[in-house]
């Protein structure tokens, strides 16, 4: 700060800002790491447009969309895609509805035990599905929910709820209470002002939280692995797995085409919600509770 008012020599020529040997090294590292991160995907993209795709990374001799065409007409994978849309879409709706209500209550009412509840919810986020799969299966079985869309939707929704509740509460906290109170004075009811004043202002946040829930449910592999047994109800993740372990006749062109379509929404959505990424990865930690 002092540098703006005093004519001190600019220190930028030394250390961090010094050109020379450090900068080529920096680029070498970044290019190396970036390449390491991207190279495995090049096979997926190239093979998906290669009618003669193999497990090997190769330059296609000819390029066409026949793999994607077979995906659309393949009765199995077209069905898996539909199942993924139903499961991820359904759970996103459930998560959004329940976390908007819950997040609003957590944000607006100082009821006894609220802090404890917030931390309890945070703790439930830490409970990994990996460690509860056996009892989760038994409980859903007793409820008659194994191998059903409803069961998948509810379980996936519950898994996404802790993060969604924290995010929603945070977004509602950013909408000033005075706006809402002014609406009450103008005669709007508590519910009316919540819907007309708070929701539009919190909408971008609500959308972001919904997208995170969708991506997680869309990508999930373990939950359908234990809950779904009928191939007609497999989501794409299980379809890919089953096709891959049928090793002797793997259709690499089809699998990579499916993969491209399957990962596209996750990439697009991440671009949309990128600025909320930190809040989602370390819920409440650095961004403040």
């Amino acid at each position, binding site marked *: 700060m002092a540098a703006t008012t005093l004519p001190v020599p600019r220190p930028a020529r030394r250390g961090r800002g010094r050109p020379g040997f450090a900068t080529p090294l920096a680029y070498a590292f970044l290019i190396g790491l970036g390449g390491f991160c991207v190279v495995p995907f090049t096979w997926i993209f190239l093979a998906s447009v290669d009618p003669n795709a193999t497990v090997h990374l190769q330059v296609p001799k000819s390029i066409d969309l026949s793999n994607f065409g077979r995906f659309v007409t393949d009765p199995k994978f077209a069905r898996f895609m539909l199942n993924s849309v139903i499961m991820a879409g359904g759970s996103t709706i459930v998560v959004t509805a329940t976390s908007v209500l819950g997040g609003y209550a957590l944000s607006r*009412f100082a009821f006894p035990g609220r802090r404890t509840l917030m931390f309890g919810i945070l703790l439930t986020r*830490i*409970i990994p599905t990996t460690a509860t799969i056996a009892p989760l*299966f038994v409980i859903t079985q007793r*409820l008659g929910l194994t191998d059903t869309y409803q069961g998948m939707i509810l379980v996936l929704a*519950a898994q996404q709820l802790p993060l969604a*509740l924290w995010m929603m509460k945070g977004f509602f906290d950013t909408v000033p209470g005075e706006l809402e109170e002014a609406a009450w004075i103008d005669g709007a009811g508590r519910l009316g002002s919540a819907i007309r004043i708070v929701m539009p202002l919190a909408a971008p946040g609500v959308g972001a939280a919904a997208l995170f829930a969708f991506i997680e449910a869309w990508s999930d592999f373990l939950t359908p692995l234990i809950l779904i047994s009928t191939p007609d109800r497999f989501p*794409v993740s299980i379809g890919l797995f089953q096709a891959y372990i049928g090793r002797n006749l793997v259709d690499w062109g089809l699998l990579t085409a499916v993969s491209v379509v*399957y990962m596209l929404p996750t990439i697009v959505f991440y671009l949309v919600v990128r600025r909320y990424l930190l809040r989602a990865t370390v819920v409440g930690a*650095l961004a403040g509770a």
Partner: protein
Amino acid sequence: MIARPLAGRGQALLVLAFLAPALLLLALFVVAPAVSAVLFSFTDLALRGPGALAPKIVGLGNYTRLFGDQSFVDAFGRSVSFVFFSAIIGQFVLGLVAALLLARKGIVGKGLFGAAILMPLVVPETVAALAWASMYAPDARGTLNLLVGLVGQEPVAWLVANPMLAIIIVNIWRGVAFAMILFAAALEGVPREVVEAAMVDGASAWQQLTRITLPLIKHAIVLYMLLTTIGTFTVFGLIYFLTRGGPGGGTTVMSVFIYERAFHFAEIGLGSAASVIMLGIVLAIGLFYVRALRAQI
């Protein structure tokens, strides 16, 4: 302060009604399974056979079986080395260096590098695993074998010859971005003047890093270590897709062990006992994290 105290019984009911659906879902599908894991772990509950019809209480039997079972001890050991080498060492070092470099002035293409590093974390884990099936293709035309062939190395069947190293590399690849995101945010909070003052005083780049920058982001480092340990300890799909715990159980980490016991051997009781050990470790770390947060707020 936005939150207002409750005004009357009507509002209390409203709050309850608003919270009920979310809390019910959490209770049924997150809390109840965790609590049931503890209860089941004291029984011989199974998915088939006598334990399915009339489960009996076996006390600590499942736990003594686990600790006397070399395959469980091995699975635990593999989880520890998986967490240590992929998250504590690999992702940490690469993610921190990436964050430091991308925070520097005058680096061109930051957005591109950031996006490239983010991509492995963003895609579904099944797609990530499938991508590595091609990388690790065992013959001379496998991508990694082509690369090591450049330095005269013979082709290696990666997932067979050194399966733990193979899945550790995949997990480093997937998780670098997580470390990078956390450290990039923390570095934004490091005041430029402090670092510049150190430069003026003639501190070397290494001294600036170890004496100024790292101490200033030490909270983020602790936070990363806690979160990454929990997250990496419970990785399942990435490993299971590629190896199904094999070859010969060589990549059966804790998560795969739990899945195999509960669903392939149908021993819910034993699988639950292994789950409880994992839950205990994760929650202990988690409580530490929550307490650290609480102190901050």
